[in-house]
């Protein structure tokens, strides 16, 4: 029976080849567009998140309680070594690093700007989140005497300095005095994390400690194996170390999280558009197909075909169109996404404008299985719903009347 239904559906579709091909093309093209937009936008947001995570927050950041609200230099992490030991033995922790954080002033002979000072261990940063990959000028190095500095590219541009130039960094130390240190610019970073690019100054952690009179770090940044279990780690930290507070990247960068949610909403709207396109296209084809074959269906019923079998034939027609459109659109979309995932969408000619929004100039597309499963569900639902009205029309028709028309 299934073979008969399938054969009948296929034969009916082939009877109007051009019309069928047009609808399949329509579904395929909308699906292609949807997959492309989704993959590119997701890739864009993911890169923005990746930049924030790699350059600043990691997946989880631990601070002394109150530091986030009032980033006072005195609010160092207590029990830092115990926390590090705990993290070192935690099965879900991939790596962790500690940083000194402070606000201060950076000055050249002619200009000065506010600065976000990061005291970091360069070797640890490389293995932890590959911070060195953001270097666009100079080198990821603080020199033998640890007197080097790395600057965000916008800050370097505003100060009109480049590697080799000298800067003076000033900040409030533990004893409430203004401490200063002269550093030589070793490299410039472009992270597309706006705050770092505009005011980030990285110096060696030991140099920062000495300058500010600190014993411990302000932040421990953590990368995990399984992000879905990060809440468990947070609970354990809360119980074990009541003096600290941990934040996920979503909590530290709520705007990025909102961007992601906005993108999900946008994707849902896109799915709805594809659904409507498929539904309207298939509805048109099936309706015309049913109306022009009322007599034929009347004959089928007269010679003993139950209405359910005829409904299955019509549904199969609709389903075949949907599946063909889905297959073509998925192949096309999948191949295009593969290309952009490998080579990226190069928008370097708009890099300045994109940089203002923290977006990388080359966007690498994402490919997620759910793009295809959700599209399939949307197309399948469209094929099902689009035949309901034609079936109702058919149900109302009487074989004896349509045969004799």
């Amino acid at each position, binding site marked *: *029976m299934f073979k*008969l239904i399938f*054969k*009948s559906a296929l*034969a*009916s579709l*082939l*009877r109007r080849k051009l019309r069928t091909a047009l609808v399949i093309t329509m579904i395929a093209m909308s699906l292609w567009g949807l997959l492309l937009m989704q993959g590119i936008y997701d890739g864009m947001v993911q890169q923005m998140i990746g930049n924030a995570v790699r350059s600043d927050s990691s997946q989880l950041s631990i601070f002394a309680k109150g530091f986030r609200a009032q980033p006072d230099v005195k609010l160092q992490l207590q029990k830092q070594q115990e926390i590090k030991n705990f993290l070192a033995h935690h099965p879900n922790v991939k790596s962790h690093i500690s940083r000194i954080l402070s606000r201060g002033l950076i000055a050249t002979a002619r200009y000065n700007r506010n600065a976000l000072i990061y005291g970091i261990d360069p070797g640890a940063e490389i293995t932890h989140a590959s911070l060195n990959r953001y270097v666009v000028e100079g080198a990821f190095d603080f020199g033998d005497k640890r007197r080097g500095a790395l600057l965000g590219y916008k800050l370097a541009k505003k100060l009109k300095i480049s590697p080799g130039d000298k800067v003076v960094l000033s900040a409030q130390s533990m004893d409430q005095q203004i401490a200063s240190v002269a550093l030589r610019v070793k490299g410039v970073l472009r992270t597309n994390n706006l705050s770092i690019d505009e005011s980030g100054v990285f110096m060696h952690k030991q140099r920062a400690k000495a300058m500010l009179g600190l014993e411990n770090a302000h932040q421990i940044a953590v990368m995990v194996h399984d992000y879905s279990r990060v809440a468990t780690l947070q609970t354990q930290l809360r119980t074990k170390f009541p003096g600290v507070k941990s934040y996920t990247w979503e909590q530290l960068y709520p705007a990025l999280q909102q961007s992601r949610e906005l993108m999900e909403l946008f994707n849902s709207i896109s799915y709805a558009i594809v659904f409507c396109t498929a539904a309207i296209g298939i509805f048109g084809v099936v309706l015309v197909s049913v109306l022009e074959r009322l*007599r*034929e269906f009347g*004959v*089928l*019923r*007269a*010679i*003993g*075909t*139950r*209405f*359910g*079998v005829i409904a299955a034939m019509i549904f199969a027609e609709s389903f075949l169109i949907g599946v063909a459109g889905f297959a073509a659109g998925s192949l096309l979309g999948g191949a295009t996404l593969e290309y952009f995932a490998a080579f990226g969408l190069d928008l370097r000619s708009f890099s300045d404008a994109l940089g203002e929004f923290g977006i990388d100039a080359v966007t690498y597309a994402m490919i997620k299985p759910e793009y295809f499963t959700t599209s399939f569900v949307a197309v399948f639902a469209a094929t099902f719903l689009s035949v309901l009205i034609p079936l109702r029309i058919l149900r109302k028709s*009487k*074989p*004896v009347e349509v*045969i*004799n028309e």
Partner: protein
Amino acid sequence: MSKFITLSNVSKIFNPGTPLEVDALQDIDLVLDRGEFVVLSGPSGSGKTTLLNLMGGLDRASGGTIRIDGKEITALHEDALCDERRDNIGFIFQAYNLIPVFSAKENIEYVMKLQGRDQPSCDRRVTEVAKKLGIEKLLHKLPSNLSGGQQQRVAVARAVASKPKLILADEPTANLDSVSAGELMDMMEKLNREENITIIFSSHDPMVIGKAKRSVVLKDGKVIKNETVS
């Protein structure tokens, strides 16, 4: 011979209760035996097609009962009627009504497929019927590539292939030339004789009417003559 079809007080009113009300059939009583070769004749509008439709369960009687092989088809619901047509009744239409996207063979085996018969069994039966009707060489062709006479033979083959107990044919020769019509009637007569299928057909054509073994004449929705032809 046994009572195969029994119509008791069968009536059919179209558009009841409206100014367009028509009494298409009135109190029809008719008994036909198994294996009969019956012609329904009469002027246009006399109720021949309506009577065939009621006997085939394509339409519902306004009153009375119709029994076929002991089963009261007037009491069956839609799906059961459909199954009855699939398993026991074959139809031959004036306009052939073959499925245009199916080949002649696929048209012939369609009802057998609905019955759930396997492909080898369908193939054997198609070959057997096609041989009897002289259409072995046409089996792969689409209906659009067949002449009217050839299409009607395929339609007859479709009606016969599933071995129904009853075949209803509404003016099967109306679209055929006299030679094709004569050949078709000879084939139907042969099938009636060899496969013991009860065949009821309607016609205006005296040549075709002359082939029947029983003649039922209708006028204004009533049976005015019912006689066996020697």
